[in-house]
Structure formats: structure tokens, C-alpha cells
């Protein structure tokens, strides 16, 4: 791989990790509130739908979800290796495929909202 390509891959991975580290605790806390049946105002259909209809909202959702998917895929590949699975090509294809499908689905749903 050329240095330029590597830096893009690394950059996206690091960006995804930063996003996950900063945003996911709040995201998990929101899911916890939902699970407790205390759905906050901003997650009621009207508000969240308005957020996802807004251009900036769409960009935020797309960047957060797609970079997190990419970050998770990249690290899952390493985790498989660490747990003794040495079929790296198969693992890499599988995890990156899921990340790509998730990204395409995210783009599609945001487009249709």
C-alpha cells in the first residue's frame, strides 16, 4: 500500500475512534433512557425526524455512523486475529463488507427521510 492510501485508512480509523470515544457514552446513555421507558423529548418522532430532515443533521448522522462502522470493522479484524482466527482475508472481507453495507444503508435512509 502506498503511504497516501495508508494515511487515508489510518485517518478514517482514528477519526472514527475519536468520534466513538467522545459521542458513544452519550449515545449509550440515551439508549439506556429509552430502555427505561423514559424517552427524552428530543427522541420523540417529531423532533428526531426534524433533525434527520435537516441538512446539517443528515451530515452529522452520516459522518458519525459511517466512521464508527469503519472504526469497528478495522478493530474487529484485529480482534479476530488476537483470538486466534488467522484467516485474515476472509475476516477482512466480512467486516469491511458489513461496514460498507451499513454505510450505504445509512446514506439511503437519510436520503429517503
Amino acid at each position, binding site marked *: 500500500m502506498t503511504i497516501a492510501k495508508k494515511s487515508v485508512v489510518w485517518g478514517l480509523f482514528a477519526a472514527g475512534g475519536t468520534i466513538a*470515544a*467522545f459521542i458513544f457514552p452519550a449515545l449509550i446513555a440515551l*439508549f439506556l433512557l429509552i430502555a427505561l421507558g423514559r424517552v427524552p423529548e*428530543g427522541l420523540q418522532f417529531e*423532533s428526531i425526524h426534524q433533525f434527520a430532515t435537516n441538512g446539517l443533521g443528515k451530515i452529522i448522522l452520516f459522518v458519525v455512523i459511517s466512521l464508527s*462502522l469503519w472504526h469497528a470493522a478495522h478493530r474487529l479484524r*484485529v480482534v479476530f486475529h488476537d483470538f486466534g482466527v488467522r484467516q485474515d482475508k476472509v475476516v477482512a472481507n466480512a467486516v469491511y463488507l458489513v461496514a460498507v453495507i451499513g454505510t450505504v444503508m445509512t446514506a439511503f435512509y437519510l436520503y429517503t427521510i
Partner: protein
Amino acid sequence: MSRQPYVRPVSKTTWYMRNGRYKKYMLREVTCLLVAVYSLLAVSGLASLAGGAAQWNAFLASQQNPFMVGFHAAALIFFLVYMTFDWFKLAPKAMPVQLGEKKLEDRFIVIGHYAAWIVVTLVIFWFAGVI
């Protein structure tokens, strides 16, 4: 070199159990499963949102059960300790800040990350209507 070098047998699947540092490394590593779970949960939530109010409310209802309460609570603590706080701890090593001849002290970079994280969390909570 001897003709029959001794190769210490190391388990491919349980190698990290021998050493506390390796165990911690693995605990950090597996947090990516949570990143994957919550990203995919977000995608499925987005799918319901695109399907309209009824589907979105069905998605919210499907998330309301004691198992998910336990899962989210455990995930939140595990994620904070082994992903977020560990990420901040390594930040000065990954992104050292050069100030002329000197380097910015590590602790300032770490404190900056915590401060930014608190602001980001408050902004999300404010947008979500939690606070």
C-alpha cells in the same frame, strides 16, 4: 543457532491470560464490539425513522425491556473505562502538541480531552432534551 531451536508453546486463543497487561489490552480491544453493536443499532433506528412515526415508536418500544437496561448500563461503564478514558490517556502519545522548542505537557492534553468530552456530552443531552 542450534538445529532444533526451542519454541515456547503459546496458545493462539488464550495467550493474553498469562499477563495482566495483555488482559487489559484485550479488554480495550473488545470495546470495538460495542462500537459495532451501537453503530448497527443506530442504523436500524434510522431505518425505522425513515419508515415513519409508527415504525419509530415500534423501534422505541422494542428497546424497552429489562435485558436492554442491564446491557446498556454494563456497556456504558465498560465503554467509559476501557474505550473513552483509555483513548484520552493515549491522546498525548498519539497527538503530541509542539509549542516552539517545548512540548505541551501530557496532562494538559488529557484534561483538554475530558473538558471537550463533557461539553460534547452536554450538547448531545441538550439536543436530545435530557437537560
